[in-house]
């Protein structure tokens, strides 16, 4: 699971109103190189919840990879080095084993072999 995916996952248990972002527990992660595409990154940036991305990167041990505050879009567009760090966090880091924890219910959704299982139990729908 990449952090771009993590950025869009939310707990969908019935009645939950504060199910985002899911807290990332990474037991095993790897880095895989992905082609750098500045246009894609600039395009996707407005959708990204920056604090959630920073939190997820930190869960993998990357405390200084990203600035705490979301950069200005124009800054991101012109700062190639920052863009590359954004690229790395968003697309190159893969969580292989771990879990995603709902902030409201503490329900843990497992990640196995890089695949999160977001299925709910019958009493959660």
């Amino acid at each position, binding site marked *: 699971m990449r952090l771009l995916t993590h950025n*869009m996952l939310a707990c969908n248990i019935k009645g939950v109103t504060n199910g985002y972002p899911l807290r990332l527990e990474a037991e095993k992660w790897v880095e895989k190189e992905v082609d750098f595409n500045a246009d894609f990154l600039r*395009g996707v940036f407005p*959708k990204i919840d920056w604090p959630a991305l920073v939190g997820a990167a930190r869960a993998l041990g990357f405390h200084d990879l990203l600035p705490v505050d979301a950069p200005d879009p124009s800054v991101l567009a012109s700062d190639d080095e920052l863009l590359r760090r954004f690229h790395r966090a968003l697309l190159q880091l893969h969580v292989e084993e771990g879990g995603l924890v709902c902030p409201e219910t503490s329900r843990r959704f497992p990640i196995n072999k890089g*695949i999160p*299982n977001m299925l709910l139990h019958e009493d959660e729908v």
Partner: protein
Amino acid sequence: MLLCVTLPVRSISHLLELGAFRPLVSVPGYSTRATSESVKFCIMVSSTETMEVSKFTKLNSARKSTPCSTNVRATPDIEKTFVHRVYDAIAPHFSATRFAKWPKVASFLNSLSPGSIILDAGCGNGKYLGFNPNCFYIGCDISPPLMGICAGKGHEVLVADAVNLPYKTNFGDAAISIAVLHHLSTESRRRNAIEELIRVVRKGGLVLITVWAVEQEDSSLLSKWTPLSDKYNEAWVRPSSPRLHNSVALVLEQIPETNEVCSATEISKDQNALPEDGEEDGGNDDTLAASIFNGVQEDAVSSGSGDVETNQEYFVPWHLPYHRAEVSGRLTTEIANGLAKKDDKKGAVVYNRYYHVFVEGELQRLVAGIDNVKTVEQFYDKSNWCVVLQKT
């Protein structure tokens, strides 16, 4: 005496699992009309049979473990048995045989701007993931084995339910649902799945949905499918079954309140004639039995062609060659449970997949009930009904 019953599809699968269908005997010439939500069939009941009240109580407690609720997001048993379990069992073979890219889907994907985030809900073997290399795809499917196969190809996937997507609202740029909705067994679930697709895309985002059509280009294909009623017919037409006598009560328990009784009039083969209500030939019903038959049909969808007798519920076979069939103990169990059958002539294990095939206009009717969506395109292509929707 002859009694007719309409059962919600959900109840049928539950009863099937309980083995309750054994005693039911089809009556030749009688209508086994199916709507999207229920199947109607007629049974012969001996007027001397007694219904044991104790059996009802027993079944009531068994029932608690099944999501027979009206919760649209709870998976009905028919889908668990004839969709989820089947795809899990056939995943590698299914994946290997799904490679042709359908031109209409391809052109939709290619029309999306570079940098788009595309959500494929019910992505199967991931055939369309990564199709347009300028976009980022996230696929999800209810089948863990299929998602394992996708992940092995390097795709970004998760295990999730199309009726309850785990995505934030307004995130995706586009979504696709290719040959998925026809595996959902109720109209509410089908509509809910469309609502989810709309919810997860941004305002102005596009959604492509394709589903199998009743109106197949190759109409001979339908003869290879088993209409739902026939399948249950097969499961329970066992004249020599030792359970013939006592289990009628098991069937009746699931059915609430009102009484529906068919006349003995023969119904024509094309099923145009509707059974008439009336007193049964052969005297008084057992009042307990009579009180339980139900004519209620939940969310009945009237067919676009105006023919309410069009059957839309089918089991479509999947032939898993012996050399591919898993040799785990599971296969033996599945055959024992009736989930799969061996076909020595074809050298394959046959699984049945549940389908609700769509009639013309049905997708549009589902969409009509949804806010903040407009239909951009609608078409029929290669035996599929398709729509492109836009979130407004």
